[in-house]
């Protein structure tokens, strides 16, 4: 680890003065004992850090439990089954009967189209579909 020494530096009396003055500045100040006494501090710090982590984790779990309990205690949306009474039973729907294409009454369709007063595609599609479903669903 050889260092260069600039010639102009070595000729400068200020540099020599700085080097001489540095000898005094480098004198030990008595920090050694204090530093050696504190060398174990990192371990203490690490333990403190771990304690902090454990406390933070415990606080997080407690907060989660509190939120859970609060949410569980809230009334459910809508009336409870007891208040609403028995669920009304609806009659099972009859299966839809689909008429074969050849059985769609064309005359009735035409009459209905005329009755609507307009011949739109939407109306036609609706009527044809209804006609195909048959008389069981027509009235519903």
């Amino acid at each position, binding site marked *: *680890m050889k*260092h*260069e020494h*600039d010639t102009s*530096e070595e000729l*400068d*009396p*200020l*540099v*020599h*003065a*700085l*080097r001489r*003055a*540095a000898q*005094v*500045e*480098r*004198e*030990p*100040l008595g*920090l*050694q004992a*204090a*530093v*050696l006494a*504190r*060398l174990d*501090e*990192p371990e203490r710090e690490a333990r403190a850090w771990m304690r902090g982590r454990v406390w933070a984790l415990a606080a997080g779990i407690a907060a989660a439990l509190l939120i859970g309990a609060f949410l569980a205690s809230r009334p459910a949306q809508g009336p409870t089954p007891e208040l609403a009474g028995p669920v009304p039973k609806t009659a099972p729907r009859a299966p839809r009967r689909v008429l074969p294409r050849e059985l769609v009454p064309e005359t009735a369709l035409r009459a209905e189209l005329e009755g609507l007063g307009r011949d739109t595609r939407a109306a036609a599609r609706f009527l044809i579909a209804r006609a195909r479903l048959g008389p069981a669903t027509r009235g519903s």
Partner: protein
Amino acid sequence: MEARGPEPACEELARAAQAGSREAYGELVLRHEGSLVRFLRGRAANEADAEELAQEAFLRGWRKLEQYDPSYRFSTWLFTLARNLAISRARRRRAEPEGEESLAAVPVHASPPLLAARREESEGLWSLAERVLTREQHEALWLRYGEDLAAEEIGAILGKRAVAVRVLLFRAREQLGGHLERAAARASRQEGDVLVSPREVWS
């Protein structure tokens, strides 16, 4: 200026400390404490603060010792670590007005010239350097003439290129020398003495 010859080199001591020797680390602390405190003076509010900062740096050094590569100078590693510590602490204290304030910002000619010259005589050259130079100039100057580090090593510590360090050192010497000459001239005018350059006095 690390111990050579019969005494083990700092790098050898650091290797022993890496193996767990507190005694070796204690020796490293003893060798570097004064120098480190001087280096950190520009980044501390006062001497006690600089000593506290140096202690913290040594403790951090002990914790991170496994990261040190003994093929490099121990002092370079230690001073880099200490400087980074000082910077991060200054960041934390930024809210405090005196935190980042360098003592170099104190006006040089706050007192009458003769008084200033006498104070400079008594306070020591390095304290004067700390007062009249910028913090960076003072740090570079100390690492060069106090620690005898090369420009490349100083650059590694200060985060600068070697060329920039040489320029920094040149300007620091010029500024300090110029200040001393002006102070001497003022003093001689006050006392009616013959003007003698401080560079001549110190040589």
